[in-house]
């Protein structure tokens, strides 16, 4: 076998491999392996998949007082469920463009209106990002901090203030105060 035929074979073999790779990477971006590493979306206990209930129901596009999701009070823009939820498949979300996305990449949905926040979020400046400053980072979805239905950040109870210098005295007691952080369940 000469060199030419070897390269020809290599080329023929490599084309489908490359194609496959491209396809898989496209799939990764479009599918639920998201662009940004995030923990699973914060669903209420037992609520997902929505199709569990909604599979047989017909989508009612009328605005009305909900009889089941009564805990949801929409205090977001002047919108309605199907501005975001996909009436065709409740297990997904739908962008204004009609593009269907998974709950795991809901940031694209929020980003439709909150463009500057989305821009900052992508570089890790809006919102919380953990992990390694010079390595792998973990993002949070918008909905991890902002309820999509009432996006205002919930107030928190502050941890105790420092001890005033006047009250800081020599103590022989063996009971050392524990860290108040331990009492919080995040």
């Amino acid at each position, binding site marked *: 076998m000469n060199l030419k035929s070897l390269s020809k074979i290599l080329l023929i073999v490599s084309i489908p491999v490359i194609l496959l790779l491209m396809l898989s990477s496209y799939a990764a971006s479009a599918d639920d392996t998201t662009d940004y590493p995030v923990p699973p979306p914060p669903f209420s206990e037992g609520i997902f998949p929505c199709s569990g209930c909604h599979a047989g129901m017909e989508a009612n596009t009328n605005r009305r007082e909900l009889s089941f999701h009564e805990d949801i009070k929409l205090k977001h823009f002047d919108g309605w469920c199907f501005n975001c939820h996909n009436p065709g498949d409740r297990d997904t979300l739908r962008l204004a463009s009609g593009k269907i996305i998974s709950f795991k990449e809901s940031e694209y949905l929020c980003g439709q209106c909150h463009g500057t926040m989305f821009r*900052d979020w992508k*570089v*890790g*400046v*809006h*919102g*919380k*990002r*953990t*992990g*390694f*400053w*010079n*390595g*792998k980072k973990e993002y*949070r979805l918008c909905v991890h*901090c902002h309820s999509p239905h009432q996006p205002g*950040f919930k*107030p*928190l*109870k*502050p*941890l*105790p*203030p*420092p*001890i*005033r210098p006047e009250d*800081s005295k*020599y*103590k022989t*007691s063996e009971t*050392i*105060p*524990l*860290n*108040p*952080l*331990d009492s*919080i369940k*995040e």
Partner: protein
Amino acid sequence: MSKKNCNNPSSKSVDRRSFLKGTAFGLASLAIPFGTSDASVWEAFFQKHFREMNDDEIKSVIKRMEKEYADEYKTGFKIKTTGPLPGVKFGYGLDLSRCIGCRRCVYACVKENNQSREPQIHWITVLQFEKGEKWVNVFEEADRYYNPQEVPEEGHFYMPVQCQQCENPPCVKVCPTQATWKERDGIVVVDYNWCIGCRYCMAACPYGARHFNWGKPQIDKKELNPDVHYLGNRPRYKGVVEKCTFCIQRTRENPGRYPACVEICPVGARKFGNLLDPESEIRYCIENKRVFRLKEDLNTSPKFYYFFAI
């Protein structure tokens, strides 16, 4: 008296040491325990400045210290001496438009960095300001003892202050013994075994970032963080100054975790990264946000940037 204590392994060694110190005729020069069989006390006394020790000397010091800590805290400590990463200068960003003053960072820092619980030491001070015409340079308007049911309080904003890791640190300039210095990655550190406790650095620091161990630092054994750095969060001694080191024990690793305060912040107001890396989030903040540094007029050139993301 001292003999009796020596033979009693259950008594805390540092207690004994300080007791002996106290009884040593009250003279400073004689404040070292005589007649004790514990040679490590003398080794500690004659220990050299951290930067003047060679690798072997550092190794033996670390070994001695790990034993001392183990004896005192009944916990195995791993004392690192990781040096600065090349091409790194740390910078910190804090989003004033996001901070809600919940003080999670204060206590995460306390836990990560083994600050004394009693007497209490906090490296982070969160200031509450009233929104209005007064700006953050009128500090008398600030309140650090706010304690409502819920934060943020209407009409207020919050500004956490910690060591600003100045490029031009006044604390380093004034230290009479060179016990504090700025590392190559920009972190200002203290050698707790070299500091004489004169507190000149505390007078010089414009940010109240330095804290003194007024009493013997006490931490519950269960709460100790055994992953420590010589220049960072190893347990401190009575009578020395300590400060924030951008969690040197975390951030100097490769890959290095974010500082504890960044990791805990529930609103993601805290940003951290390499100032020399144009892709880092801190660079993005500086280049794209309205940024200011505290007490800029003092020319300390902090590497701690307050910004408004909105």
